């Protein structure tokens, strides 16, 4: 790891001012992606501004129609939260299968979606549920937030404060983990919402998480695993790599979609 200067921010204002005076700074959430990336010298920020001590980024609350989770809440906390299990059990289940227990004790919701890894789990839930991302300066809808692989609409000094998920009638998530890395080779989050079915796919798309419109239409007519897995999925914009071809991933998307709808019930 190249040299860096570490700062622990005590508040959002403190964090943005530290970032403002940094030459080439990066915010540090749980560090589960950024620290390994720095160790590989693929990232070399001059300064790290640790968001872990900011109280505004903590907490889980629900008002009956919306579930709001602080950006600094860890995957283990989401998985174990009775509020999340009660409001959106599929989200708790998704969080309980990210990485491994030690990663879940550190990694955060905000860090995951800010990184927008094309194989991360959370972006599928955020997009399928039509969540709203609240930052220190504005609110961004999920559809406007994810801008392709590892890209979001966040500006360099912007900080995610919380994510508000409209509570769906029902929802399910299924992924096919890479046998070695355990990252999703295809993960599908399917939700039955007041605006109709919404289906988001992670792990497979060349541009990161995306909505599978044809599947939403099929589920609108018939909410069933067979309807979801019966949709033709084009391999055109899917990833091909040593782990699987785009055709293979297209089939995985269909199978995972069926399982997600089955899990939703």
């Amino acid at each position, binding site marked *: *790891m*190249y*040299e*860096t*200067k*570490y700062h*622990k921010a005590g508040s959002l204002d403190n964090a943005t001012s530290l970032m403002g005076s940094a030459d080439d700074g990066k915010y*540090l959430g749980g*560090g*589960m992606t950024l*620290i*390994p990336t*720095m*160790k590989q010298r693929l990232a070399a920020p001059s300064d*790290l501004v*640790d968001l*872990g001590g900011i109280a505004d980024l903590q907490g889980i609350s629900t008002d009956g129609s919306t579930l709001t989770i602080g950006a600094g809440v860890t995957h*283990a906390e989401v998985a174990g939260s009775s509020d999340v299990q009660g409001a959106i059990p599929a989200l708790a289940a998704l969080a309980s299968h990210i*990485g*491994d*227990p*030690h*990663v879940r*004790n*550190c990694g955060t919701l905000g860090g995951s979606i800010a990184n927008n890894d094309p194989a991360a789990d959370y972006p599928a839930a955020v997009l399928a549920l039509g969540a709203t991302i609240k930052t220190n300066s504005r609110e961004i809808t999920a559809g406007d937030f994810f801008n392709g692989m590892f890209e979001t609409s966040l500006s360099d000094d912007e900080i995610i404060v919380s994510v508000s998920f409209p509570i769906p009638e029902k929802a399910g998530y299924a992924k096919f983990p890479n046998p070695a890395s*355990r990252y999703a080779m295809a993960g599908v989050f399917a939700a039955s919402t007041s605006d109709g079915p919404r289906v988001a796919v992670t792990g497979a798309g060349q541009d990161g998480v995306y909505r599978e419109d044809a599947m939403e239409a099929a589920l609108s007519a018939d909410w069933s695993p067979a309807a979801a897995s019966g949709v033709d999925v084009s391999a055109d914009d899917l990833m091909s790599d040593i782990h699987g071809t785009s055709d293979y991933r297209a089939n995985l998307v269909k199978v995972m979609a069926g399982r997600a709808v089955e899990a939703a019930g």
Partner: protein
Amino acid sequence: MTTINMTVNGKAVSGEVEDRTLLVEFIREGLRLTGTHVGCDTSQCGACVVHVDGKAIKSCTMLAVQADGTNVVTIEGLANGADLHPVQAAFKENHGLQCGFCTPGMIMSAADMIERYDGKLDEATIRAELEGNICRCTGYHNIVKSIQAAADEMSKSA
């Protein structure tokens, strides 16, 4: 260089570290507590698992400065003098190790999972919870048996 202070295995310690120093480097090289191992150094194998403020984490993926002010427990902090911790005793009794390299991380993860599940563990849960700990010798069977035995023992005496 930054001065850090933390409690490690019940003792207050301090040190001067570069901000880029990993927690495992501070534990092994700064404190000379070499029971915590570095296996893969890529947050996959779990040989470096320690407890920070009661939570099991991979110390190769946390900066030492992040752990400033925390309470850290390493494998050296589990036994009570000459009396092994029940998880350590169970690994010994059930032949839960062969080369022993992964064992410190296995035991720290085991102690954490037994605590979180209040000792109520079955084989499938233990295997799922070991996702982040890799062993290249045992095939895991005796590790799972060891953790099950320790969980049963600890919930009996609780």
